[in-house]
């Protein structure tokens, strides 16, 4: 069969069967052939594909296939494989491997945005994860958020980080999108805000605005990680007592750093929260990531669940690892 094959003449089920043999990069390449080929791509079941954007690492991943974005200045030495259209912009591409295609842009962030919009338009799949960077402009960040929230009401993982975002921008995100698994915030609120903490994991890098009221909203979390907080000894004691009584049944790892904690901080009537005599490492995989505490003290929840707690006086960090 040396002559061109009339693939579009195939019956739908057969066409679907053919497309299901192709990987996301091959499907993307096929979508670039014509409008008609673009329209048949979802037959491959692409609506169930998993899409992630990682701004720091400069890629969009569809399942395990990577659409990397690179600067035009890095084009030299790459084996270019023609140009492709991403939402009206035509740029050069190179195939790095079977699992990776790279496109070249003047501006990485615009490239990431266009590639994201194009691939999700072709595959019609939801965006599961948006990991941003503080160097991305707020304008581009917001346009990606707008794009996501017009297509879906939930996202599994969201990192709130961009240059010159406002409190309004961030509050609008929480109004438009429900974050279900992983919330990571680099953004610094100008004042304390009320936001939902209905994710499995919460990581806030500048949590000076977090109060005990916010902590009580994290009762379903598996991981709570707060940096730069202003929680006091009393706040922390109140929180740990609540945990002990079973109010945080899912919590497996807690790490709270606060310079408001006194050097003599302790809880549950224990003389100290640090084993200085025979310190050990305790490790546990929580939500796919290894968590480690060192020199921790044995404690128990009221229902008998064991845990390790440690207070690092030098860095003013309380760690809790539920075993």
């Amino acid at each position: 069969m040396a002559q061109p094959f009339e693939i579009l003449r195939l019956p739908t089920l057969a066409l679907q069967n053919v497309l299901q043999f192709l990987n996301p990069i091959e499907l993307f390449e096929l979508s670039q052939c014509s409008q008609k080929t673009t329209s048949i791509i979802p037959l491959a079941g692409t609506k169930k594909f998993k899409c992630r954007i990682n701004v720091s690492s400069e890629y969009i991943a569809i399942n395990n296939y990577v659409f990397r974005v690179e600067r035009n200045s890095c084009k030299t030495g790459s084996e270019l494989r023609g140009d492709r259209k991403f939402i009206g912009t035509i740029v050069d591409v190179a195939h790095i491997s079977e699992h990776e295609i790279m496109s070249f842009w003047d501006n990485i962030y615009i490239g990431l945005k266009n590639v994201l919009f194009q691939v999700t338009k072709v595959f019609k799949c939801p965006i599961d994860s948006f990991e941003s960077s503080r160097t991305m402009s707020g304008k581009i960040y917001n346009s990606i958020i707008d794009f996501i929230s017009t297509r879906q009401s939930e996202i599994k993982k969201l990192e709130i980080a961009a240059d010159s975002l406002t409190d309004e921008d961030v509050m609008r995100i929480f109004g438009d999108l429900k974050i279900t698994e992983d919330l990571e915030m680099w953004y610094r609120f100008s004042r304390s805000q009320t936001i939902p903490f209905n994710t499995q994991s919460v990581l806030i890098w500048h949590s000076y605005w977090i109060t005990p009221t916010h902590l009580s909203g994290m009762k379903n979390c598996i991981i709570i990680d707060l940096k730069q907080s202003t929680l006091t000894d009393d706040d922390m004691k109140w929180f740990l007592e609540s945990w002990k009584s079973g109010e945080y049944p899912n919590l497996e790892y807690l790490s709270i750093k606060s310079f408001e904690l006194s050097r003599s901080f302790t809880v549950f009537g224990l003389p100290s929260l640090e084993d200085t005599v025979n310190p050990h490492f305790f490790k546990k995989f929580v939500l796919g990531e290894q968590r480690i505490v060192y020199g921790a003290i044995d404690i128990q929840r009221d229902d008998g669940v064991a845990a390790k707690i440690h207070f690092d006086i030098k860095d003013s960090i309380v760690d809790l690892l539920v075993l």
Partner: protein
Amino acid sequence: MTSPASSSEVKYLIESSEGNTFDVSGAALRQSNTFNAMFLNIGADGPIPFTDYNEATLKKVFEYCEHSVNEENYSGPKHQDDLSKWDLNFFNEMDQKMFIDVINASNFLDIERLTSYCCERIARMLRGKNTQEMIKVITLPTAEELEAKQKVEEKKAAAAKKVAEKAAETAEKTETLEELPVQQLVQTTRNKLTRKYLSFSNE
């Protein structure tokens, strides 16, 4: 000879688009889910009409089915490298037209194994290729074809618009008539008939 397929010895008569008939074993036919759904339990009086497909295509399809009668049950696509020499010859000796006809027939007859092997074969033509290479492999409508198609669609849209306008006009008239009381409607019709009668008389 046709009868319910309780034994693999049973032969069925298949009728092609040319009206020709030929024998196929029950065992081969049972690889077709379409056949199983339609005839397996009730049997068939006379030839089974698969008249959307020509004799050559159907014979090719059932040649495959006869050959794979003793193979284990289909359990998902097989890599082309794992195909037997017979399978490879079977696919290689088909030209593109026959290949597409066989896919169409196999798709209709719902013969999973054959359809899947055919599709994997097409997918192999696309695998690992970039857009430019794919364009060479597949036939896409030319600009003229697209233009012609667009013109046809525009004509269709214009015709549909006219029909819609006419329908709206008719509906409006009907509505006007429906608004009249029955007595008035009868009188209006009578007047119209009278005028028509008078006009005939005048002629």
